[in-house]
């Protein structure tokens, strides 16, 4: 395996006067990989980015960049491109001057500086706006300038701190693809901090989910979604039916909505577990083989454009499902292959 572009080993940090921070973080980002870090507000995502960037000093642990120990190295010597949530553009400089600033600091000659800045602005589609100041640019354009400013110094890695959160929904979708395109073209390792799980699922090669300052699970988007390591991961990533349950047999589990047949799960009989069923795995209508079928009363039915999300009251509990079909829903069934058993309880 090649040397990770960024590697964190046992990194701890807590803000003075509070318990908040990050604890025991072990993480490796491969060259060219886009790793999204997601989690609820205050879970330590931005703290993690600040530690990698060098804006905060770790209490314990090691941070390596391209294999070199950078734990005690100041931000200016880490050569990382950072895009801030607020973009942090310099308002008294034009777009190209913003982009060229990192080159100016490095002592690059004036004409070379300008041509490289303009070339990078061209890369993000803003060559025509080079002479404008940030106050004259839209949010999306400012975001591109910030990205260009981070890229022009040819950084070892990119750190993106919720760069899309200030954009409207339509612009955000465009910029996701744009960032991904540029990141792939440059094959640059990228840490993308976001609270938007859909953004993370659609952009990332891998996702790290943080809860309470710790990394709860790292995996591909598909792994996190289909095979969450814990109930907390399952609850955070996507929508989920999560039921406190008890194992009745090697292929049977008792849930609040009724007894479910599962694939052989390997859990001990009588064990307390959490059953996870994703809403899109709940199939409207009765099962042909009669397995895991439930009749219920439709409580809520939300139109979401391409599909609808509904809540069906079953035996005093609730099954949430998603479907593209229309018409009334009185019966649903859950295929055994779509039931996940999580061996932790809240």
């Amino acid at each position: 395996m090649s040397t990770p572009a960024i590697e964190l080993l046992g990194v701890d940090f807590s803000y003075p006067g509070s318990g908040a921070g990050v604890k025991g973080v072990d993480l490796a980002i491969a060259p060219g990989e886009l790793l999204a870090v997601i989690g609820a507000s205050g879970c330590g995502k931005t703290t993690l980015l600040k530690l990698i960037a060098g804006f905060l000093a770790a209490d314990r642990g090691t941070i390596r960049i391209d294999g070199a120990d950078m734990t005690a190295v100041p931000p200016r010597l880490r050569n990382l491109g950072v895009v801030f949530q607020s973009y942090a553009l310099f308002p008294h400089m034009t777009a190209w001057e913003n982009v060229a600033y990192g080159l100016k600091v490095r002592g690059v000659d004036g004409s070379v500086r300008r041509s490289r800045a303009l070339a990078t602005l061209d890369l993000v589609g803003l060559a025509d706006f080079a002479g404008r100041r940030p106050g004259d640019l839209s949010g999306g354009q400012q975001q591109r300038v910030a990205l260009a400013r981070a890229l022009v110094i040819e950084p070892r890695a990119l750190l993106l701190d919720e760069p899309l959160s200030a954009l409207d929904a339509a612009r955000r979708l465009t910029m996701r693809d744009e960032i991904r395109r540029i990141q792939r073209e440059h094959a640059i390792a990228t840490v993308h901090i976001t609270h938007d799980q859909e953004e993370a699922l659609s952009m990332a090669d891998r996702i790290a989910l943080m809860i309470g300052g710790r990394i709860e699970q790292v995996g591909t988007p598909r792994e996190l979604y289909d095979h969450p390591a814990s109930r907390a991961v399952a609850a955070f990533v996507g929508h989920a039916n999560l039921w406190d349950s008890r194992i009745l047999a090697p292929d049977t589990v008792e849930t609040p909505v009724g007894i479910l047949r599962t694939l052989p799960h390997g859990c001990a009989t009588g064990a307390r577990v959490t059953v996870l069923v994703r809403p899109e795995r709940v199939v409207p209508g009765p099962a042909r083989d009669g397995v895991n079928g439930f009749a219920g009363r439709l409580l809520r039915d939300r139109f979401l454009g391409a599909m609808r999300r509904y809540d069906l009251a079953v035996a005093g509990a609730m099954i949430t499902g998603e479907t593209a079909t229309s018409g009334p829903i009185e019966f649903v069934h859950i295929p055994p292959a779509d039931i996940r058993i999580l061996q932790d309880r809240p």
Partner: protein
Amino acid sequence: MQLRPGTLSLLIAPGALLLGFFFLLPLAAVGRDAFVGGAFARVFGNELFVRGLAGSALLTFTAAGFSLLVGFVVALHLSRLAPALRGALAFFIALPLTFSGLIVAYGFILCYGRAGFVTQILATTGVDAVAFSGVLYSPIGLAFASSYYLIPRVVMLMLPVLVNFDWAQVSAAESLGARRVRAVFDVIVPQIVPTAFAAFCLVAAVVFGAYGTALALVGTRVNILPLQLYSMISETGSDFAAAAALSLVLTAICSLIMATGEVIAARQERSHAGV
């Protein structure tokens, strides 16, 4: 919201009346007196005028410079506090603005005068009370006392800029390779300096024309233009035409200082807005 011309005139009227009766009319009256009998020539020809101008300039630069320095540091500290605490502290800091110059002077005499509270405490540690209190009645003491009501003005002007400043810009500059000092000079200074300059000009104009604190503290022993003007119209003076001319000179200098600050700040604002 578009206002009808009639409504607009009604809203403007009180302010216009105040401006007319309490600024333009007195100014016209003073101007009428000033431009007769060679009053300006007598003012500019008086060797005390040049010394007074120099004294006023020294006092202005000292007091405004010191106030800007202290006010900036205070505002910087306040900007980093929680909004509720910041609001409470800003209220107390702004209190001196409600005091007259005379009260400020009296307060300083009670604290730092020959029999002042602080002077007496220091005297018990061997400090010469006469020498110490003498400083208060000097131009330095006057500058120090003036700062008491100038610093809040600086704080009130600088605070919004510092509160709204995006400190991530400094981090951005550092991540791009700049040392902290360079980041400060490249990123913070260009954005803060215009407001700091405007604040300096405002407090400079205030202290340049102020005479209440000066009169109460040093009488006419310190030669500054406002006290020269006072001498001309007090019971010892009788040249009202020269007093009118000097008051116009003072008004012009104060207006010029303030206008300079406003122009620089406005230019910078337009520049940041990309206009």
